């Protein structure tokens, strides 16, 4: 589904991604973890080209995402993206947030977009907040709306960039519950997260990153009990000490 092949990215002198080669299969849930500044967010932001890369290639569904003549806007509708800061549109109500892209990009009819939006809100448990504005919602509710907004374009892949990091602890669970449900339904997902319980429970595979490179790929059971790479071992033992 997603293939990274020798992906390199620099910010000036600083190399943010180093020879990343990896693949995500259809229906797979990959959790990317590692210390801050290890390039996790940068990596998933390259998939919908919020970040450009300088070397290597990325394929989505067999399509080179840097191909000349690629319709970037059409391509991006295939990748749902959930941000750490939710980034809901504050001037629009919840249902308008969800309908905006279907209306403007897909030219759906108002009725069609709205009924889809309401179904999605139902799914994330916020149908009763359809007419509310983002400021009226808690962080957890905002993030669930953001997930619904991304799902409105029916993307075959969902990317999550630390979706619970900006939340108060008591709201983390509700967002993870929605993500678990998505995973159960067979959505292909790549999540950057520090929620190790989520990783253990939901991930098919863990990618451990440090200094811009993927150092270890493993099933959660293996990763959490017997990581191979010394840096992954250090990371896991740090987790245990907390």
């Amino acid at each position, binding site marked *: 589904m997603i293939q990274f092949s020798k992906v390199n990215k620099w910010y000036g002198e600083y190399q943010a991604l180093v020879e990343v080669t990896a693949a995500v299969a259809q229906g797979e849930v990959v959790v990317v973890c590692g210390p801050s500044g290890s390039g996790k967010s940068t990596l998933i932001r390259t998939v919908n080209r919020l970040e450009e890369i300088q070397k290597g290639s990325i394929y989505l569904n067999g399509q080179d995402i840097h191909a000349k003549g690629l319709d970037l806007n059409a391509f991006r509708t295939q990748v749902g993206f959930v941000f750490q800061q939710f980034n809901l549109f504050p001037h629009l109500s919840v249902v308008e947030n969800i309908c905006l892209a279907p209306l403007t990009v897909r030219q759906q009819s108002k009725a069609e977009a709205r009924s889809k939006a309401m179904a999605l809100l139902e799914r994330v448990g916020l149908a009763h907040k359809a007419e509310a504005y983002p400021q*009226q919602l808690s962080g957890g509710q905002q993030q669930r709306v953001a997930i619904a907004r991304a799902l409105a374009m029916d993307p075959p892949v969902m990317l999550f960039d630390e979706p619970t990091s900006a939340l108060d602890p008591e709201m983390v669970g509700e967002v993870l519950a929605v993500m678990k449900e998505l995973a159960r339904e067979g959505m292909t997902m790549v999540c950057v997260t520090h929620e190790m319980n989520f990783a253990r429970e939901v991930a098919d595979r863990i990618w451990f990153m440090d200094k811009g490179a993927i150092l270890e790929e493993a099933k959660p059971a293996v990763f959490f009990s017997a990581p191979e790479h010394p840096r992954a071992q250090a990371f896991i033992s740090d987790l245990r000490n907390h």
Partner: protein
Amino acid sequence: MFEIIANNWQQLLVGQYPQGALGGLALTMILSVLGLIIAFPLSVVLAFCRISPYKVLNIPATILVYVVRGLPLVMLVFWSYFLVPVLVGQSVSGFTALICTLVIYEAAYLSEVVRAGIQSIPEGQVEAARSLGMSYRKTMLKVVLPQALYNMVPSLISQFVSLIKETSIGYVISVQEITFSANQINTQLLTKPFEVFAILALTYYILCFCLTQFAKWAERRTTQKRLGLRSPKGGELNDPVLESQ
């Protein structure tokens, strides 16, 4: 003062009309409204040129803004009144010259307000819209501008207010707006300059005050809507996901 108004209200209100051209307060209002209607969209276009990465758009817009900001309005008015006829080979009415000048002058100032407003919207808003597949144009139109314009309301209003007052500069090229009318009345009366110009001042003040009050009302309405104080639904009902925790 009331006597002056009672004797001259017609001239203050409409100038020489219907015997001559429309003038007075009516002309001032026409100039203001027309100026605003043309200058505002133009300022948005200018602002986008200013933040554009394309030099063809960016450089001319930047030059225009810098030049206009560096020159006094009166000079620009004289320029368009005396120079434009030479350039186009046709005489230009004072009204046209004044409108063109006001529009260019105000658009340049407003564009800086608009540009700041656009650039103050967090990058995350643009990223969210773009990652949903929205084009740059749609992102600006549907996501950035509505938020930016709302944030800019106070600065926009002071700029609009100064446009109303700037129409008075039409006096120097004999556009018969209200300042011109007042001056004519003053010339007839000779002995009452304080009263006549006090009437003029009051008129401008009331005009500007109405605009700021309207803006305040509109701003409050939007704020209330966004805080949900006007939204019909959205009450506290139960939350199935939270309850399943």
